């Protein structure tokens, strides 16, 4: 992921909302964006793993990002989306509040994450991108997907 910070090229990202903040994932890590559908619970899985869904014949695990980041629960709405991402041979769905934007971020707009942002989820973050008035939080997928020992 460090090369994103180094290259001069633009990065195409998918932007999604979570708890009224905007996050971004590079588009090449996103396979699709799905509406919420029936989730089958998996017993004794980690608390942020909501279960599995049938994604066109492939059984795909679903992670609730709010739970993963330790944010408070919120009920799912019509805007709730599942972003199917793949990283390091893992294909996983992330439940987010909404996802509706694709942006090109100039490489020089991405900065290392300032310390003040340092909230609970800071370890999952690669940096922040300033775009005029918006602040996008760049997600570090492999850290998000790495299971935490409980």
């Amino acid at each position, binding site marked *: 992921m460090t090369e994103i910070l180094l290259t001069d090229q633009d990065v195409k990202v998918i932007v999604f909302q979570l708890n009224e903040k905007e996050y971004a994932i590079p588009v090449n890590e996103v396979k699709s964006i799905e509406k919420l559908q029936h989730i089958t619970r998996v017993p004794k899985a980690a608390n942020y793993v909501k279960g599995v869904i049938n994604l066109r014949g492939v059984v795909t*695990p679903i992670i609730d990002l709010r739970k993963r980041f330790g944010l408070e629960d919120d009920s799912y709405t019509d805007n709730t989306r599942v972003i199917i991402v793949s990283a390091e041979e893992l294909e996983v769905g992330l439940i987010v509040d909404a996802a509706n934007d694709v942006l090109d971020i100039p490489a020089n707009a991405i900065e290392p994450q300032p310390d003040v942002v340092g909230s609970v989820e800071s370890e999952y973050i690669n940096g922040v991108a300033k775009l005029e008035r918006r602040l996008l939080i760049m997600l570090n997928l492999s850290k998000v997907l790495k299971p935490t020992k409980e």
Partner: protein
Amino acid sequence: MDLNQYLEVFIDESKEHLQTCNEQLLELEKNPTNLSIVNEIFRSAHTLKGMSATMGYEDLANLTHKMENVLDAIRNEKLLVTPELLDVVFMATEDLEEMVESIASGGDGKRDVQIVMEKLHLLETGEMPITTSEAAPTMELEQRPVSSMSYDEFERTVIIQSKEQGFSCYEVTVTLRQDCMLKAARVFMVFEILEKSGEVIKSSPSVELLEDEKFDASFTVTIVSKESRDDLVSKIGKVSEVEEIHVTLLNLEETVVPTKVEQKQETLKKEENGSVKEQEVTAAKTSSSKTIRVNIERLDILMNLFEELVIDRGRLEQISKELNHAELHETVERMSRISGDLQNIILTMRMVPVETVFNRFPRMVRQLARDLNKKIHLEITGAETELDRTVIDEIGDPLVHLIRNAIDHGIEMPAARRASGKDEEGTVELKAYHSGNHVFIEIQDDGNGISRDRVLAKAISKGIVTPEIASTMSDRQVFELIMASGFSTAETISDISGRGVGLDVVRSTIESLGGSITIDSIEGKGSTFSIQLPLTLSIISVMLVEVEEEKYAIPLSSIIETAIVKRSDILNAHNQQVIDFRGKVVPLVFLNSVFEVPNSGELDEFFSVVIVRKGDKMAALVVDSFIGQQEVVLKSLGNYLSSAFAISGATILGDGQVALIVDCNALIK
């Protein structure tokens, strides 16, 4: 040029060529004078050499090149095929295999092959000690009478039969003039004459080589004809540029008696301590079918897409029923039928004959027999039996283990066999066949068998069974003890006829494939290990059950039966609720608490239970209701959730939802 895209093809084809080499080398050992087999091996080796050189695997190419030189010498009758020579060539192919294996697993295919290279070089230059001691065999070959062309079973039958019908069989040797310009044309003319006068059975060199002018000045044709010898000579004499025609009446008895060279082969064979006789390879084996290589991942994708289609088909059927529209109804029905056929085809596309696993065994057995100084005859039947690719990939290692076991510990030494009135040569039978929804693979040996008493004594001393239980066990149960973990330790190898070395691993592998293994044995007569495997791993029969709002699938293979139990029938035994099931105390497992299912708090007067087993142990899984039996497509939960508790996988139900498959083995301690 980026060669990576060809890598997969290269690996697959290399493996295929090496397999051909192996098979043909074994064949050659049986017919050391059949040069067409050598040609076959040579071709495979040559292709392999070319491919590996193109791909830049120098070591691989070099070694193949050396091997090719030796083969070439055999082909040109400069070298004799001896078991010692074959040992070296086998060594070379083994090294080649390991190199290819290393490339396949991402390595560079480099390997220290100095020793083999040297040995091959010694062979090639004729300095191999074993061949030099045999008084210049090359000389023998050159002096070999022409009539010593070797005939296989089929050709002999033809010759004998035509003789019975009044035909004569001749060997016609035609020598062309040294200055002959168009040798192939002369050959063609000679053949035309011969074909008019009778039936050509064989030619040496082969017709292809003759057509390519790949022969010196003379060639020999075997022909059955009603014409006299002189007629043939004068007819062929009409062809110009022919220097000499030599026609001999073929006396078959003469060919049955081995020529001098062949006798030497025989004695050589007898000198070695262990010898292996392979199964007869049927003549029809070479009939090739047209195939195309498909990546298994693509098949999986196809299967997934197809399942989507099946789910939609279900919905369509529902809609058409509701609408009650005749034409729609008809179309949907047709579609259902076609997709059913499609499903069958997609499933059979994943099927592979067990041959791909079996054909590595003849060489292994040969080597083992030589190493152990035993005489072993390997018989393979049912190699064409088909199994799902996923099963095939897993079954190889357990089979290797069992065959080694049978040869190492089952079959006795030749002297011991003679003493007990058996044939010196032991037989190991490898058999595969279909039966119902299963494939059976059996490994049978006529060796020493397993001693019930010694197994029991060992098991009791190891604390695996108590003496009380031991006395009530059936023979089969006793034999199965040798597969118990903890049974096989180093000291037992020489003890209880040595059986049980790592067999617990074999059993667990087979059980993880949804199969089972049983052992039958008669002391002194031999043992049979019988493996039962599901046809495919991708489809299993399950019982769908409901626990509160959730659906779970329990594999039918582990279910004994289902029952309804009254609350008052539940007994308490030491912190564990149990039921009395046909006189056996079976512990209850409440799925809703094990799986932490959000519950509604209602408690029924009656419980639905599914009795499942793991080996001899049982448990009763408490569920809310049974939905029914169903064939489902097994799906993995993926890497992310690979360690889910008591869940072995998932499946997609008709309504598109995911149901989890319960791993009963994890629920029974």
